[in-house]
């Protein structure tokens, strides 16, 4: 494979990683701070995409749609927290998994009832609709560069919030010893609600950004959720830094696996079985690596402090 194409694929991998990070960040925050397994994170991503697509079509502007979708996603997250999730914090993980899985089924059907089951259109902003030539005949869409920038900005913002602010300090303290923080006079319930709402908003943000590239349809978050879980498990649950690096790792592995493995297999097999075996292996690669990492470091690459 020519070196130019390899570089292009590396860039594609980084970009997929950044998108994964946007989804995984909220998940790892909620999981790390509240020890709460939220399978419904994927449908919150879907809700964000639907809200973004609807509001963008309604206002006629992607940017207005984005700005309005964020508080709407936050609101949805808070409603869910108050109505369902709040009652699950004290329960064991099995109850949480069951209840949040129920939320997935409920919201997927609700979205289908409200918007119909056909995929929704969502135009990308006019100013970002161009592309820069990457290699002969292939453009790299400007919009994807914007996603990379948004992902990096989100990572920085999260790092700043968690590591450098008073709120972040409380969140970290709550993560390592919630009863103690509560005893010191902090309303831990409100803190959890805030963290959860913020996580929901992050998922919604990722959903809006993904809208113009991916199909906005019921169940769109389900596949992504699995990858997001792989990311936070590899990165170390609760660790923002871990999630960031693991997301990049997963994005690179997946993309390079998909482009290189079929070629590699051709060294051992006939072309036709090599392509199919390569494709099958590539889709397993991420999970194989996750298993290997967990075998060597059960807490993930960058376990959160105190966890």
């Amino acid at each position, binding site marked *: 494979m020519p070196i130019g194409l390899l570089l292009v694929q590396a860039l594609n991998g980084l970009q997929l990683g950044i998108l994964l990070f946007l989804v995984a960040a909220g998940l790892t925050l909620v999981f790390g701070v509240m020890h709460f397994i939220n399978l419904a994170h994927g449908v919150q991503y879907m809700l964000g995409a639907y809200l973004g697509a609807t509001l963008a079509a309604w206002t006629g502007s992607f940017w207005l749609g984005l700005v309005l979708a964020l508080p709407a996603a936050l609101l949805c997250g808070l409603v869910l927290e108050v109505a369902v999730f709040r009652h699950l914090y004290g329960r064991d993980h099995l109850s949480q998994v069951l209840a949040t899985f129920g939320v997935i089924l409920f919201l997927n059907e609700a979205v289908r009832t409200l918007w119909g089951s056909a*995929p929704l259109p969502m135009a990308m902003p006019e100013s970002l609709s161009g592309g820069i030539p990457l290699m002969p005949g292939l453009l790299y869409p400007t*919009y994807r560069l914007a996603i990379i920038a948004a992902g990096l900005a989100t990572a920085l913002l999260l790092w700043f919030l968690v590591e450098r602010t008073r709120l972040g300090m409380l969140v970290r303290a709550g993560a390592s010893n919630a009863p103690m923080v509560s005893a010191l006079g902090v309303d831990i319930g409100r803190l959890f609600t805030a963290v959860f709402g913020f996580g929901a908003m992050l998922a919604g943000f990722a959903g809006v950004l993904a809208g113009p590239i991916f199909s906005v349809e019921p169940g769109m978050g389900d596949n992504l959720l699995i990858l997001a879980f792989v990311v936070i498990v590899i990165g170390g649950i609760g660790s923002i830094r871990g999630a960031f690096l693991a997301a990049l790792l997963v994005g690179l592995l997946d993309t390079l696996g998909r482009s290189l493995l079929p070629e590699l297999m051709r060294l051992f097999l006939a072309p036709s079985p090599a392509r199919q075996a390569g494709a099958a292996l590539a889709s397993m690669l991420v999970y194989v690596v996750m298993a290997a990492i967990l075998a060597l470091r059960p807490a993930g690459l960058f376990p959160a402090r105190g966890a």
Partner: protein
Amino acid sequence: MGAAAALLPARRARAQQAGIKVGLVAIQTGPQAALGTQLRDGFLLGLRHLDGKLGGLPAETVMIDDELKPDVAVTKVRAAIERDKVDVVAGVIFSNILQAIMRPVTESQTFLISTNAGPSTFAGRGCNPFFFTTSYNNDQVHSVMGQAAQDAGYRRVFVMVPNYQAGRDAAAGFRSRFKGEVVDEVYVPLTQLDFSAELAKFAAAKPDALFTFMPGGLGVNLVRQYRQAGLANIPFLSTFTVDESTLPAQGEAALGFYTAAPWAPNMDNPANTRFVRDFEAAFGYVPGSYAAQSYDAAMLLDSAVRRVGGKLSDKAALREALRKADFHSVRGNFRFGVNHYPVQDFWLCKVAKRPDGKFQTETVRKVLADDVDPYAAECRMR
């Protein structure tokens, strides 16, 4: 005498009440529900055009949501046959559902009319006297695109399909008529979201055209990303990737992309003009092939029931009447082959924007005329 005369109208009334019940298998849950909705609306419009009657008998539709789960489909279809006493089962979007309900339906001597799924399993040795389809044999559609690529003189084509049975069948179907070089064959998982790695590979290979089969949301992702990557100057040849069920989401991005089909909304014949106009007026969206084939199924049933004079119990006569296919198909040219699969024309179609701003596929040229599916010769119909 007077008493007998008084009884007569009552008996006639009872005879009229004995109408025809159709079990319509249309998926209504899950990501693929949009296809089931098209299928259902097409059939219902057919009934509406026939004043709610099939061959003069008042028709009743029993809706069956298969949920894309073969076991669920079998349970519900069995209930429809045994409890609701349906006379005919119609519909079915997916081949795996059709395969599951085939035996329970046909073994109870109930006619099964597929309006979309057309696996080759039931076209050759597995052909069945109680089974008809108003769609096509799946393999035909892919091979039509192979022929179209061949006719257009493309020499190097890049093939990209999902890594499962239907995807591999699509690639094989395309290659059956395309004699040029397949530069690369890329298989992607069914859960694929981002195609940038594949598209980079595609651009590096510098092919004359792309052939792809990416149903549903996969196709929405691919079409958008193909356009965004500036690749749209390379012909996009596809099957089941750009159609009226996905075009509302693909919109401008799909403009000028190709697909293969036996029918398109712009076909110019009186039956089709009426179908498309009334469909859009009734349901507010552009009909796709799923709707058109189901509409045809309603018309087919109507013609057959009329021919046997409403006597549904005479299965042999009803079968003969169905074989005649004595109705005006929205496709124009339509008849059944020995295996009860249609013998019909196939077209190269292209995505176009209509003056009212909606998108639809439109015929470009006829690729195959009166095409008999490749398995028909193996069928020994009893």
